[in-house]
C-alpha cells in the first residue's frame, strides 16, 4: 500500500474510496479504543487508590530508570477494565495505545491494577521479554506485590512492582539502580533489597529445600539449555539476548512501526 508511489488518477480515486470506507469502518473497529483512558504520566491513578507519597516515589524511580536506560514503566489503576473481556486484553490494548517505551526498542512495561475485578497484571514490551520473562514477572507479583495487596496497601504493592521491574531492567541495561538516587522506599519487598541476584538465590534454595531437589536437578539443566526460564539459574545476559532475538525480533518491523513501543502480550497476571 505504501510502496507504490505513482499518483495516477485511479490510485487517487482508490485512495479516496479507501478513506471513505475507513471512515465508515473505523468508528466500529475502534469502539474499544475510545474506552481507553488517556495517558497522564508515569503514574495514572484513575481509581484513586495511591497516596501522594507512594506515587511520588514511583515517579522518581521510573524517571531515574528512564533517564539511565530509556526503558519506561507506566503504572495504571482503574476501577474496572470493562468493556474488555480480560485484563490481558485490556493490557495489550492500553499498552499499544499509549505506546509505552521507545520505538524500535519496545522497552516499555505497564503495571495495571483493576480494583473491581481484583486483578493485577504486568504487561511487558517485546524488547524487555528477555529481562522480564513471564516466570520472573510472576515471581515479582507473588513476592513484592500480592502481600501488600492482601492488606489493602495498593500504593505499596504497586511500588513493589515498580521496584522489582526496575531492578531487572537496570540489570539488563547494566545500570546500578542505587546510583540513580531515585530509590523508592522499600516498605513491602524485602527481596528487592538484595536485588535480582538475591531473588534468584532464594528461589534456587526454595526449590532445593521445598521443591524436592532430587527431581529438579535434571530439569535445571534442561531449562538452562533451552532458556525457558529466562536463564533464571544460568547466565541472565545470554538468555536475555537469546529470547529477545527469538521472540521479539520478528515483530520489530511489524508492530512497532507506529513509532512507539510494541507489546505482544508478554507478562503475568494475578487475582488477589
Amino acid at each position, binding site marked *: 500500500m505504501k510502496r507504490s508511489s505513482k499518483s495516477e488518477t485511479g490510485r487517487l480515486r482508490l485512495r479516496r474510496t479507501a478513506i471513505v470506507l475507513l471512515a465508515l469502518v473505523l468508528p466500529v473497529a475502534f469502539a474499544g479504543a475510545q474506552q481507553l483512558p488517556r495517558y497522564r504520566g508515569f503514574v495514572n491513578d484513575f481509581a484513586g487508590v495511591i497516596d501522594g507519597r507512594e506515587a511520588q516515589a514511583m515517579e522518581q524511580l521510573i524517571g531515574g530508570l528512564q533517564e539511565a536506560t530509556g526503558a519506561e514503566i507506566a503504572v495504571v489503576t482503574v476501577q474496572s477494565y470493562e468493556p474488555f473481556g480480560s485484563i490481558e486484553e485490556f493490557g495489550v490494548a492500553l499498552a499499544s495505545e499509549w505506546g509505552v517505551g521507545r520505538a524500535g526498542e519496545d522497552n516499555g512495561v505497564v503495571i495495571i491494577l483493576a480494583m473491581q475485578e481484583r486483578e493485577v497484571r504486568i504487561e511487558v514490551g517485546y524488547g524487555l521479554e528477555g529481562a522480564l520473562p513471564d516466570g520472573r514477572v510472576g515471581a515479582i507479583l507473588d513476592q513484592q506485590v500480592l502481600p501488600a495487596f492482601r492488606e489493602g496497601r495498593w500504593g505499596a504493592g504497586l511500588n513493589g512492582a515498580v521496584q522489582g521491574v526496575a531492578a531487572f531492567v537496570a540489570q539488563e541495561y547494566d545500570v546500578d539502580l542505587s546510583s540513580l538516587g531515585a530509590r523508592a522506599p522499600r516498605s513491602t519487598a524485602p527481596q528487592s533489597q538484595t536485588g535480582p541476584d538475591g531473588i534468584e538465590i532464594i528461589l534456587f534454595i526454595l526449590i532445593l529445600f521445598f521443591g524436592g531437589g532430587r527431581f529438579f536437578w535434571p530439569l535445571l539443566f534442561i531449562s538452562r539449555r*533451552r532458556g525457558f526460564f529466562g536463564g533464571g539459574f544460568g547466565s541472565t545476559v545470554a538468555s536475555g539476548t537469546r529470547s529477545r532475538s527469538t521472540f521479539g525480533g520478528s515483530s520489530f518491523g511489524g508492530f512497532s512501526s507506529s513509532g512507539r513501543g510494541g507489546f505482544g502480550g508478554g507478562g503475568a497476571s494475578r487475582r488477589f
Partner: protein
Amino acid sequence: MKKYTWLIVLGVVLLVVIAGFSWYVGQRNSLIALEESVNGAWSEVDNQLQRRSDLIPNLVATVQGFATQEQQVFSDIANARARLAGAGSVGETAESYEQLQSAVSRLLVIVENYPELRSNQNFMRLQDELAGTENRIAVARQRYNRSVQTFNARIRMFPGSIFANQLGFGAREYFEISEAAREVPRVQFN
C-alpha cells in the same frame, strides 16, 4: 493538420497506456505488501505456537515427577504436540492447537490433586510462562486475523478483484479456534 491529430491521438493513447500500466503496478505492489503483512503476522503466530509447544516437555517433566500414574494424559499431550508440529494449513494448525490445548488443560486439572506440586516454585514459573505464551498466541492470532481481513477484503473487492485471480492471490484462511480454547488458563496461587 491531420499529422497533428494523429500525434495527439497517439500521445493520449500512450498516456492512457502508461497510466494504466503504472496503476497496475501500484495495485500489484500493494497486494504484495498486504500479502507479506499476512505472512509476517502468521510467522508471529507460528513462532508463539512453537514456543508454546517447546514449553510442554518442561511442564510434563515437572508434573511427571509428582504424578507418575497419569500416563494417559502424558501420551495425549505428546500426540497432540506431534500433530501440531506436522500441521500444514492454517486450519490444521488451529485444530491441532485446540487438541493440545485440551490435553494441557486436562493435565492442569490433574495438577489440582497435587498440592505440593502447585506450590512448587519451578512449577509456578512454568505456569506463568505457559499463561504468558497463551496470551501471546491470542494477541498474535488477533493481529493475524486482522491482517487476513484486510487482505481478503482487498482481493475480493473491486478493483483488487480484477488482478487478484490473474496474479494468483487467493483468499487467506483465518486462524479460528473455538470459544473453549480461547480461554487463557489463569494462574491462581493462594
